[in-house]
């Protein structure tokens, strides 16, 4: 049977349409609350339920700067060690997401006593800070802030930077 003959079969398209229509109906019917919350503006920064992460917050550049200059929290850089060494927010601690996922649990020892933690990654579309926040939350770190603008925004704003501080 050739592909051309298959695709000219009306029945195939009827079946495909039915699958899509049914999926839309069942998708809406199975998660009405989530869809409502999304339409109300939730989940635009991260796909997490507020009730599961009550203390997690997203902060802007100005808020990050305020927290940083007031030394109110420890900054955690979730990018790779190489990226960290090339430049990072002064005073930040390097906890590369990949290294932690690969079992380097000792990376966490430096933030055990931190009352509050600000996590950032490259900025733009990067997801490392969010993924790291999920892991840290599961390890008992609850007071987490995510600076979504990340390294890119920090650097572009002309704020102080630090290089190779750890090496």
């Amino acid at each position, binding site marked *: *049977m050739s592909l051309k003959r*298959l695709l000219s*079969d009306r029945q195939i398209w009827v079946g495909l349409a039915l*699958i899509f229509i049914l*999926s839309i109906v069942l*998708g809406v019917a199975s998660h009405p609350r989530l869809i409502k919350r999304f339409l109300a503006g939730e*989940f635009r920064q991260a*796909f*997490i339920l507020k009730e599961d992460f009550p203390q997690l917050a997203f902060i802007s550049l100005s808020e990050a700067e305020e927290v940083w200059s007031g030394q109110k929290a420890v900054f955690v850089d979730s990018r790779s060690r190489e990226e960290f060494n090339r430049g990072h927010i002064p005073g930040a601690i390097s906890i590369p997401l990949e290294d932690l996922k690969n079992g380097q649990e000792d990376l966490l020892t430096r933030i055990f006593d931190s009352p509050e933690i600000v996590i950032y990654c490259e900025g733009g579309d990067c*997801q490392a800070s969010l993924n790291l926040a999920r892991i840290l939350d599961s390890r008992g770190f609850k007071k987490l802030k995510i600076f979504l603008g990340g390294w890119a925004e920090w650097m572009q704003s002309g704020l102080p930077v630090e290089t190779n501080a750890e090496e």
Partner: protein
Amino acid sequence: MLKNRYVLLAFRLIVGGVFIWAGVSKIADPLSFAHNVRNYQLVGQTLSFLTAIFLPWVELIAGLWLIVGLYPKSSALLISCLLFFFIVLVAITMARGLNVDCGCFGTFSRRADIWLIAEDSLWLALSLVLLFSPANDFCLLKRESIKA
């Protein structure tokens, strides 16, 4: 192509079963799946959310219909297209140097790597056999016109 009705039925059970499992495991926790989709860094929040709400149902229905034989050709075509898309997606992700959980089976997720491409290729091969073989046995919807 293949004409042995029992082999074809076995293929339907395997491919359909994989897709039913893929769908069910994701329907249970759409936000985690949305997060996985977002991790691929190809689409934004809204598209990730819509994918997480609807794609698992597409997988589940296509898998189910492939097994029971309701529009089996439509299901095989859809599943083949999805698998092809997944393979390209994982290849692109690897080429970009991203290290992400594939999000394939809910919490039973694994890394999007070369082994995932191999696995998807196997399912794609079985699915293509089903697409291009006569499918009239063990079907809810019997049709004469679609014989090879």
